[in-house]
């Protein structure tokens, strides 16, 4: 029994914190919202220098050969400072490719010379029994892209909305249905029939794209179906970790303010109403942390539980961020709702994150589905 970070993991986290501290990410996020798109620093070279693109790629391809929990530590650091590092798209894509025997570009993806984006396709559950994608709008989930042809080279058609980190990616990796059966596919972003429309919604640090595939040529990967499903859950675990990183900062900043701001002759943090709402954020944060350990362990320690563990982590972490961002605003009073303050940046991050990758609510539904299916 050992649920603590190894020395290497502590080092990885500290190194990530140090690397990201060289950039004024929060100021940049605000300026980008003001229309200055050049304000956002390109953090990919920093990621490459630190070896993050290859975290989940085997050492034989130049990666670090680490596991989900290590990747989650890095995402947590990105979340702390709302750094737009395109790992949420890249890492699940590399997890699919790494499990295939003949994957294209793996060595370049490990160094970060090339960048991948995961096409999020949600695996079947107990009620919705097909592979589905996030809709552009509404609650009806469309089916996964369809592949046609045979052998290793097929063509894929379909649309995917709000794909994290799709703009600028070199290769898109996901799931398509070939004769109704899910297969892993890798599609070069520059190929004919592929269009990626960059979209910005509410949080300028989050790169998103609508992906349209019209008979796009694709390489079929011999990735097992469990890995294709696990990529979705890996994305859930990563956004959970990233969210909890943001919760950490939101809580730290709120606590610091509650100690220094005085009303009626005493620090506002001495009032139970304020103290208890901050303790509630801490409670949600600690629950989320425990579930990150669960998800990090389950991916290889108990693969059958990974869907439950990752979905539970997303459900708790997503709600924690919602609450932390709102508490951050209310503890700061009026100033917390102004443009100059950082609280709105965390609030914007919370609002958008909640609605991506199947949504926080979708993760809660999946927790129920997994437990009901086992009952």
């Amino acid at each position: 029994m050992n649920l603590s970070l190894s020395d290497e993991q502590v080092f990885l986290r500290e190194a990530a914190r140090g690397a990201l501290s060289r950039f004024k990410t929060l100021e940049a996020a605000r300026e980008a919202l003001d229309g200055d798109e050049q304000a956002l620093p390109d953090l990919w070279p920093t990621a490459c220098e630190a070896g993050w693109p290859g975290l989940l790629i085997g050492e034989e391809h130049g990666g670090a050969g680490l596991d989900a929990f290590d990747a989650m530590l890095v995402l947590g650091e990105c979340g702390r400072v709302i750094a737009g590092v395109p790992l949420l798209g890249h890492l699940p894509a590399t997890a699919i490719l790494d499990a295939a025997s003949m994957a294209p570009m793996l060595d370049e993806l490990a160094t970060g010379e090339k960048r991948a984006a995961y096409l999020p396709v949600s695996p079947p559950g107990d009620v919705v029994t097909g592979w589905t994608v996030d809709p552009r709008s509404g609650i009806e989930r469309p089916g996964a892209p369809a592949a046609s042809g045979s052998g290793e080279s097929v063509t894929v058609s379909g649309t995917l909305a709000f794909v994290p980190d799709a703009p600028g990616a070199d290769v898109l990796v996901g799931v398509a249905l070939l004769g109704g059966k899910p297969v892993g596919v890798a599609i070069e972003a520059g190929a004919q029939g592929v269009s990626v429309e960059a979209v910005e919604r509410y949080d300028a640090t989050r790169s998103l794209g609508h992906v349209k595939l019209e008979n796009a040529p694709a390489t079929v990967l011999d990735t097992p179906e469990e890995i294709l499903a696990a990529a979705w859950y890996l994305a859930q675990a990563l956004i959970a970790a990233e969210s909890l990183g943001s919760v950490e900062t939101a809580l730290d900043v709120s606590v610091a303010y509650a100690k220094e701001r005085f009303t009626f002759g005493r620090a506002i943090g001495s009032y139970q109403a304020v103290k208890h709402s901050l303790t509630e954020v801490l409670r949600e944060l600690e629950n989320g942390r425990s579930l990150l350990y669960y998800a990090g362990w389950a991916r290889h320690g108990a693969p059958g539980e990974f869907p439950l563990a990752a979905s539970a982590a997303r459900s708790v972490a997503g709600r924690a961020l919602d609450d932390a961002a709102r508490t951050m605003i209310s503890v700061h009073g009026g100033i917390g709702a102004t443009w100059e303050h950082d609280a709105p940046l965390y609030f914007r991050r919370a609002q958008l994150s909640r609605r991506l990758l199947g949504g926080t609510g979708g993760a809660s539904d999946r927790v129920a589905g997994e437990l009901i299916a086992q009952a």
Partner: protein
Amino acid sequence: MDLDDTPEQAAYRAQVRSWLEEHASEAPILQGPDAIRDEDEIIAARRVWQGKLAEGGLAGLTWPKEYGGQGLGPIEQVIANQEIARAKLPGILDAIGVGMLGPTIIAHGTDEQKSRYLAPLLHGDEVWCQLFSEPAAGSDLAAVQARARLQDDGSWRLSGQKVWTTNAQFAAYGLLLARTDPDVPKHKGLTMFLVPMDAEGVTVRGLRQISGEAEFNEVFFDDVALDAGAVVGGVGNGWGTALTTLMFERVTIGLGSEGMGYNSTRFASALAADEHARRDPEVRHRLGEIAAELLAIRFTGYRTLTALQKGQVPGPESGLAKVTLVSGAIKAGDLIADVLGPDALQEGSEWAYMISFLPGLKSAGGTEEILRNTIGERVLGLPPEPRLDKGIPFSELRSKEGAPA
């Protein structure tokens, strides 16, 4: 990061498992058609079983060897608990005595007290109860009013009332926090006593709760005589002694919360049995949110164990886990009753029992509000609530509150 036993832990687990297999037939049957029904017989049988567990090294295993324990750590305690649960056998009867009161005597008792009381406690020959809370002193425990007065011959006379006392109806002894000096600030005038429950002037009354059952007792003391050897930890040191008990209480709760049966699998199974509920988006959403939080508790427990194993003090997550457990179970009870309808509230239903039990559990071991104060101050470092009782003698405090000291 891993959840597997080390080779030493695996060996210990195998040893526990084989002992339990060998002695399973000696355990009392408490469930099913052959279960013992008579309350007194159940208690008697469980006391005997505790004695057997103690002989097998499965009671008080974190106690030092010189007092009959095994000198093992919390991880072995958890392994033993897991194996006892896995074998579907009852655990020890006197979890409070073995987990909290015995360790307090080990830490603060005299040599005479240790040699007289610890062995019968461990073996279930004498069951103990914890006499701390009072009607007007729970979260603010240092406000206890039970009064022990020193007599000329060095003995004591005790009067007052205690409440929420588990096992008092069959306990042989109780560990009692009393005020011995009302003229000093409230934390300073306290003394811990061990009290024979069969002494003249002790009255135990069952305390019925929402379910209609009496899980706890109230205990009255009317001029009870205690000899000088009844003091534990020194006169005036009662608060420090009580803190030791409360520290062991947190560890006991922290290591045992999974055993309360408030888990996501059980709740999901109840809902999955309804064909419509299991597909209903609202039911699923509520269940998913509740279950995700309850799942976290298990891994919070593992984090606590990891810290204990490394000789560290468990972090705030263990205190907050109780809030998550109780609030999660309350929401689960509401959801299940919303789906099952009034039948969930029928007398004898497991859900009616749980729904009735939980509102009180919210305040057990200190109210949720006090827990949030403590964590807000100790963990987040937030400034304390202004206090009106600091440095004021208890007797003056009482008169300010409009009550006689």
